[in-house]
């Protein structure tokens, strides 16, 4: 069960990360910082959901 949840969380994060990459694919100037900020937010979101479910 735990392993399944882990896999689901990872997939969830990867979907978000790749969506952000596509969104920024053709941006050049200053895109790197914005893109990385968005990825950090996505990680925080997935981790918070995990913690909520685990009751932490």
């Amino acid at each position: 069960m735990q392993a399944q949840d882990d896999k689901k969380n990872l997939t969830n994060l990867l979907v978000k990360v790749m969506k952000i990459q596509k969104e920024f694919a053709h941006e050049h100037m200053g895109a790197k910082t914005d893109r990385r900020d968005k990825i950090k937010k996505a990680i925080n979101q997935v981790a918070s959901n995990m913690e909520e479910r685990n009751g932490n």
Partner: protein
Amino acid sequence: MEIKKIKLKNFRQFYGEQEIKFAAKGDKNVTLIHAENGVGKTTLLNSVLWTFFGETTRKFEQKDQIVNFEAKKDGEKSASVEVLFSHEGTDYLAIRVHSITDLGNVKSRFDVMGVQPNGALTPSLPNPDAFMNSVIPDVMAPYFFFDGEQAETFSSEANNKKIATAIRDILGSTLIQTAQADLRYVAKKFSEEIGSASGDTEIRQLEDKITKIEKEKDCRDEKIQGLNANIDATEVQLGEISRALIDARETESYERERLSKSDQLKTTRSQIVETQNEILRWISSRSIAAISSKLTSQSLDFIDEESLRGRIPSPYNEDFVKSLLESGVCVCERPLLPGTREWSAIQGMLSSAANAEVLSRVVRARARSQMLKEQHDDAPGILKSAEEKLARLTQFQNVLQREVEEISQKLANLPVAEIQQREQARCQLNKRLEEDKRDKNYAVRDNQHADDEIKRLNKLVSDLALQNVATRKLIIRRDLALRAEEFLKGFLEAKEHEARQEIEDAVNGVLVNTTRRHYKFELDETFQMRLLFEDGTPTPKSGGENQMMSLAFLAALVQFAEKRSLQDENALFIPATVAPLILDSPFGQLDDAYRKATAEFVPKMAPQVVLLVSSSQGKEEVVNALEGRIGAEYVLIAHNRGKKDGKNQDFLEVGGKKVATTLFDQVRNMTKISEVQQ
């Protein structure tokens, strides 16, 4: 994508407005463009790359000099290239204009407009760069607009990184690679936060250490990149010198001999390393056997003798001794009471009493001794044969090294100043190449050590940080980022493995149809490509076979891109493309027979092919092999303002007519595009 027409306006050598209409897809898909060296082949190839992406290849010299010099004299301040192309059923016009303002500043403008059926142009597309990238991704473009003279660099030993990059580019993995870099960066940021959030001095100190090591590693990464660029540039320069020496009558045989000897030298060196490794393996696996002959035979004798006498395992069983102690009576019927001398004597037997474990140990010890004995018998022979092989190879290496040095000496002593200079330059470049490679190896090794140390320190940080609620949250986030990066890495490696297999098969397919002998192409795990003769020995790197192999590799990349464009590809990759293949001087070092074979397969490499060839490359056999496939043909004619004054007048036989490719006493210095009527 299909390119229909290209119009140059005061672009480099091309004065005024001049255009080329490309042969369409189909049976006659080849546009053949003849031009002598320095007249404009490379400029034409670059004009397309420059228009679409504002970039040029390494061979495009004086990149900033875009406006034609004669036009500048006439007061012109801009140059442009227009490319008319179709994509998914619609025509588009891509225009890049380069202009110089009154203040001398350079301005560049890029537009892409749709062409309506009535010929009218739509307004410029809102994001032309993004659109162009969706038609042909910039990372894939260099493989379609390709400088053939660089083809053989694919097969050079240091270029496995280029091969890996080429495959990743055509696979469209840019997004995944950027995602990996982003995830590593974010993980690092979480690590830094752990250090400051914990309030724990030990964690902070560890984080500081990690940051310091990472900074040093980044510096070394930059250094490695710089060294890679230097190595590439030096290899290109060495290749150019080698080509120049092959082209000169006085030096051709020397240079060919040197290349052949150098190839043998490289192969011998790698065989020496392999043999040294064999000896190392012998030391780790057989040396004990070799030196322990007396020990093993004595051990075996001892075990066998003692077993026969019934001493090992001990002739009494552990369970039996225990039962005597429990019953409190010995076999001689004397009582066994704790604390008595008899009781202690019987209990002492337990330490050597036989049980399953002891039995198993004896069996294992005997087996191991037996194995050592057997290995001992053939160990000296194996070592002797490896040492003899090493001595033979070392001697051969010395002979080759001397021969290569002698050839260099002969070249340096030729009474031609130009050749002497080239030879000197070659020696200096070789020295620099060796130094750069050595420095790179050191930096790579130091980075590997740094990675291990970072891993160790991160583990210490995690162990400490897990004890604190706030830092535990950050650890979870950092590990999530790292796991995601690790997943992408594995995913990409698996896809690259598949792509490598497909490309290997495709290259072998091309070679079967084009080469005279049976070859086997191999692309190994490290992306090193090798062409082997039927018996498994490698072909010489300098030979035409290797240029052939590099072109076949390019053909395979194009095929792979085409195949990918037809598949409903995984959303993680950039979509692939089908684009025209523009090949500048693809027949470089090929001899006549390979030239013919290559000319036969080039039209099949892509739906639309543009070949730029000089008279030495576009020989009769090439034109004959292309017969029936040429849909458009042009000659680039060099116009010279100067008088002929005894200079050679160059001619070219095209379509049964003699065409002058160099004209003197003209109005201006320029290159004129002249169409050959089919």
